[in-house]
């Protein structure tokens, strides 16, 4: 496949605009958020990519997906007190105590410590393969490909272990959250 020059990214965005918007609507559940993010995507695309892109279509979708992730992470940071900012398993409770101050209160620290403890306990229950791959990817910061190479397993085996780890952790934490 021919590599696309950076300026080709905007052209690809225009070509794929309908599909990208549709993805963003599906991903955020909101037309106006999707339009916001699409503008952001356009601005980022204009700024150009850091290197040649083999598949600009999939690159743009990944960028769009990452923009949503960044927003969610930002929201998560802002309201760390809320156990689950999506609200899906606890009902849509609004956060009554918005934390305006950025320095953590002692109560916040306590909650964070508790959260870390829960995560550690949940991680300890993972099957060994999933646990190792999770550590290498999330804690040591290796890419899937690097984890695969280092362990001598395929990339799809890494993905499988990661999927097991993520679903397993989420399930354990969700069950605890419901108690």
């Amino acid at each position, binding site marked *: 496949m021919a590599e696309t020059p950076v300026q080709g990214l905007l052209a690809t965005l225009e070509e794929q605009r309908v599909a990208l918007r549709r993805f963003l609507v*599906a991903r955020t559940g909101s037309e106006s958020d999707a339009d916001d993010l699409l503008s952001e995507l356009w601005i980022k695309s204009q700024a150009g990519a850091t290197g040649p892109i083999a598949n600009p279509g*999939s690159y743009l979708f990944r960028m769009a997906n990452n923009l949503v992730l960044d927003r969610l992470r930002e929201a998560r*940071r802002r309201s760390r007190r809320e156990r*689950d900012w999506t609200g899906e*398993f606890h009902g849509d409770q609004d956060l009554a105590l918005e934390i305006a101050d950025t320095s953590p209160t002692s109560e916040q620290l306590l909650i*964070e410590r508790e959260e870390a403890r829960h995560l*550690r306990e949940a*991680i300890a229950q993972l099957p060994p393969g999933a646990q190792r791959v999770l550590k290498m990817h999330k804690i040591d910061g290796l890419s899937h490909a690097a984890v695969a190479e280092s362990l001598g397993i395929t990339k799809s*085996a890494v993905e499988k272990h990661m*999927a097991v780890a993520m679903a397993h952790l989420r399930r354990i934490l969700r069950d605890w959250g419901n108690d």
Partner: protein
Amino acid sequence: MTEDRILDEASGWFVRQQDDAMDWEGFTAWLEADPRHRQAYDGLCALDSDLDFHGKDLEAGFSNISPPANDDGPRWGRWAGLGGAVAAALALVVVMQPVERGSQIQEYRSAVGHSREVALADGTRVALAPDSRLTVSGPQLALEGTAYFDVPHKPGRELAVRAGSFTISDVGTRFAVANEAGSVSVDVEDGRLSVSSDRLDRAIVLTAGHGIKADEQTIRLTQMRPADVASWRNGKLQFENAPLSLVVRDISRYSGRSVTADPAVSGQPFSGVIAIDNGDTAARNLAQIMALDARPVDGGVRLEPRRR
């Protein structure tokens, strides 16, 4: 089971988001199919964000590390192209055990694409449809998903099957139960049983060829030929006015092959019988009946509006 299945699918999609081979169109269709899909995916994003936030603080949790097997066998290979969605479900079957359960409780799970036979100590035999879970605690059974039961008649038997808010008891018979996505159905092939629920004034007795089907709003009595009960056991799926999205979901679940429907057609209703076969044939037949195109996509088949 549905929530579990959604979460498994969501993590399959989640771990592939940085992959060049990610099927973004398929992911879009998956998100559009059910608002709970997005919520499950958001939940994983929250978890991911928490893992990053705590980072090195979590190291003490990794106590169980040994070299992982490269169990990327042919089975997984077949799944690898699916956007990982179903693959994750398959993998989880092996590792998920209930947390903090009493030791007398037994749990049986079946994988996507595989039904499973379970023989209980009292002589009861259960066929678990793919992607289902049966919990056994003495004579108390609980089902999530779909199963067919063959219970030898024995006086004084206390066996009861719980499915959602319904309890099936007084059984000495063969019958099928489905507890899927907020709806519960019971179909009797042979003998009789009684069904009770908070939603019923009193227990209903069902005999061969009769059944009950309840969704969140309504409960109705149904009839079918006894031979048609649990037809999935013979490789057939029956639908009555079901949206295409549900039909392809069932085909994927029973065949293990990814079949999806373009959102433009996913709401079209289908009634009829489909041979599960290997999934591809089922998808092609379905496409023909409904005047759609069956397009091979990465790791599966997608049904789309027919091109001129």
